[in-house]
């Protein structure tokens, strides 16, 4: 495209994510872009700092999922002090896992209740004043209270092990710095001060039921809206079961064929490459072997449910089986099923937390291990939004000399662009004028991926979008703020 557009910065408001759609002379969509507009430069400015500062420094990438960054960095730094995941003490592993499940639990609850539920409850064309969590609370107070309380439970788990809810500290090189006390543990079991873990499991099931009812009524929408083939990437344990904290990388294509066959996370750089586009600060990762065009993968709940053989906890596994039965046990490539998959993971996390909270080893005193120092460490974790990679290299003095981060949402870059294209082609193309409802559909498609552009760069589920329509001369013909 040879057109040239001038953007006046004054018109840019809240531009964390920005969509541009380009039309030809017949009003047909020629192209569309989902631009990520912020850049912070962590990979460079962490250089020169001591490696042990990394887990607390890099978690400031993101306030929604700081635990993921904290733990991915911690896993990488473990290797630098010579400790692989298997060498960590059982107590340290379990405390970290507990924190991680708490984090995924709260993050998914946040996304579903605070951000996504208005679209499901009120529809994509609902008036703007309806589309927020406050309106959900007015309409369905019980749902809102459940959602808020579930997020609270996850946040309280994090606070109990890391000292505070956001940007706490648990991990130190080779382990954790805190013993979990019986009193702290009982807080989550006895139900005296907060709803207990059994209630969380019960409510998780209730929310899945809510989603299944919605699916009954809106099957066509969920099946078709922003559906497109893609690869799916995630992490599994040795038996092929879903593992959010540690395991091997697996990817499948849209038909279910393995494109990445349970490789060690330490080898990621042999398999992944990242493309750069002129029009976005977020990169585009893909599998080298498959190539730039088809080698990109969705990550996150839908991808994980697609690529794993089973889920390790029984109730969630039952739900997974029901979920995949709808696609005849084939890969599910429908964007909107991400919401359902996310809720199955909510249940999975609640079940795993219950197991850990009842495990006496959680209260152990063996916290930190050490080994022979190395100059390179790679930590990969399944963050709420997908596969998260932290890679550090240090010199023999302990100074970080190199850092490479592939943040979950980055993997979804191509997928989100494909989702935007789908809405552009199927909803906006040849429609003449843009309505508010159409624009919200663009957002709904992006929102299903729960993008965390704070990490990759910036923003959050309810991103502000500004859509502009250009004619084939490149002139602005219609412009509308979603408002």
């Amino acid at each position: 495209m040879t057109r040239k557009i001038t953007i006046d910065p004054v018109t840019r408001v809240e531009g964390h994510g920005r969509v541009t759609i380009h039309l030809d002379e017949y009003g047909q969509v020629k192209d569309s872009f989902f631009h990520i507009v912020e850049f912070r430069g962590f990979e460079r400015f962490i250089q020169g700092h001591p490696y042990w500062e990394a887990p607390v420094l890099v978690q400031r990438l993101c306030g929604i999922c700081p635990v993921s960054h904290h733990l991915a960095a911690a896993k990488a730094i473990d290797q630098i002090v010579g400790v692989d995941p298997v060498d960590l003490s059982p107590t340290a592993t379990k405390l970290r896992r507990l924190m991680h499940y708490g984090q995924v639990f709260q993050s998914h609850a946040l996304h579903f209740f605070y951000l996504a539920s208005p679209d499901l409850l009120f529809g994509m064309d609902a008036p703007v004043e309806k589309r927020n969590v406050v309106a959900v609370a007015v309409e369905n107070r019980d749902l809102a209270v459940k959602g808020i309380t579930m997020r609270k439970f996850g946040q309280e788990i994090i606070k109990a092990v890391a000292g505070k809810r956001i940007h706490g500290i648990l991990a130190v090189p080779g382990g954790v710095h805190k013993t979990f006390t019986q009193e702290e543990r009982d807080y989550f079991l006895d139900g005296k001060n907060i709803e207990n873990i059994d209630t969380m499991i019960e409510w998780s099931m209730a929310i899945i039921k809510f989603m299944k009812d919605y699916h009954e009524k809106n099957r066509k929408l969920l099946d078709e809206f922003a559906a497109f083939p893609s690869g799916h990437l995630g992490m599994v344990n040795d038996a092929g079961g879903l593992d959010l904290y540690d395991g091997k990388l697996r990817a499948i294509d849209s038909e279910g064929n393995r494109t990445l066959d349970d490789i060690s996370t330490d080898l990621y750089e042999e398999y992944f490459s990242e493309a750069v586009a002129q029009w976005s600060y977020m990169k585009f990762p893909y599998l080298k072997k498959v190539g730039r065009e088809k080698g990109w993968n969705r990550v996150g709940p839908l991808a994980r449910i697609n690529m794993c053989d089973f889920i390790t906890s029984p109730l969630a596994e039952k739900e997974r089986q029901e979920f995949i039965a709808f696609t005849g046990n084939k890969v599910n490539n429908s964007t909107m099923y991400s919401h359902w998959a996310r809720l199955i993971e909510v249940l999975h996390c609640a079940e795993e937390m219950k197991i850990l909270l009842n495990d006496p080893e959680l209260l152990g005193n063996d916290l930190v291990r050490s080994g022979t120092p190395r100059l390179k460490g790679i930590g990969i974790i399944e963050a709420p939004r997908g596969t998260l990679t932290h890679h550090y290299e240090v010199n023999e003095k302990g100074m970080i000399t190199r850092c490479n981060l592939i943040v979950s949402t980055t993997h979804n870059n191509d997928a989100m662009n494909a989702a935007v294209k789908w809405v552009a082609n199927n909803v906006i193309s040849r429609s003449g004028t843009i309505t508010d409802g159409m624009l919200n559909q663009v957002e709904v498609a992006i929102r299903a991926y729960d993008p965390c552009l704070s990490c990759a760069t910036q923003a959050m589920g309810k991103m502000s979008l500004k859509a502009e329509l250009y004619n084939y001369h490149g002139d602005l013909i219609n412009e509308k703020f979603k408002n």
Partner: protein
Amino acid sequence: MPKLVNIIIDGKNIQAEEGRNLVAVAKENGIFIPSLCYYEHIEPPLGTCRVCTCKINGKFGPACTERVSEGLSVEVDTATLKDTRKALVEMMFAEGNHICPACEKSGTCDLQHMGYELGVSSTRFQHLFKDRLIDFKPTRMVMEHNRCIKCMRCVVDVKTSDGKRVFNYQNRGNETDVGIDYDQEARLTEEQAVNAMRICPTGAIIVKAANMPEPFGDRKFDLVSEQKNYNAKEKVTKHHQSEMGKKKIATVSLAGCFGCHMSLLDIDTEILDMVELVTFDKSPLTDIKKFSTRCHLGIIEGGCCNSENVETLRYFREHCDILVALGECSVWGGLPTLRNTIPLSECLEEAYLNSVTNEPGNHIIPYHEDLPKILDRVYACNEIVKIDYYIPGCPPDANHIWKAVKNLLWGEEYSILYSEFKYD
């Protein structure tokens, strides 16, 4: 028998042994004189930081170098003195690069402690963002010059077993820094090295592979103030008692991580009560993209790292009666200012050209008319527009935020608890 003398501190008659240190005497009598470089067993006291400045017999001077003598008259708790001491601490924050969230000494740092005690929620001086060395050459230590306040404690107090000094002042004037004798440093025992880390009032001397061992809340300066009646109420901008009634709030995250917004939600179900009192206008929590009306309060998370952040911040200033900087990034730039000492081109090259997973031969760095221009450095919000109120923290505690919001909107009684005052 030591001789007892009579002195007066803030009008209070006190008897003390002649020749004793004024800061220590005041402390024993329940009077808090802030001090930073002062360290009990260093004799004579250093007097370098001036944070203990008082009016002594009518003249301004450091209390830590003053010996108690008959008839000594000292003023400690006056508005001018408090402001002077606070300004001195603010200057130290502005002069170095103090990133509490990523510092090993956070929670046990004397500089941070003084910030809390004196209620430093923002600095009135522009941060210098000097490019300072992190020195990995020592054997046992890492010397973090970004955090050094040149108090001289280590210079006079850290010695090898045979009495050789390890640290020394070098250069002059504002170029002065603390150098290390690497040979002597290598001769320190592990215990001596750990002691050097402990004696440093900030995180400038770090023993290698030191962790952050104390959980939040259990750390030395987390919960209890040295002042008996710690009350930061006077630091709060008191607004006129305004009518009750629903108020409009707008929020935005600029170059932040969204953690402050998450903390806003961390009052859990109380948010359902809050929305009876306030409505959210333009905010990432709603679908409202442009101000639909003028707002009583604008809450800003994050500093400014690109042209769009600047425009958005100005847009908020235009449409909000009161503007609050929420969190470290918004208050003074925060952790993202780590890039302020590095050329932007290097940051971009590292991300897009040199990363291990980049395509070999890639020469594209994002640059597009639909992308905002990245600024040369990260700016604090108050460098761009007037900010009315600051809430420090990374992120600030949820209850602290909502207390402040209520105070600003309805002028309710309010005081910051010491335990709420945090930079990390």
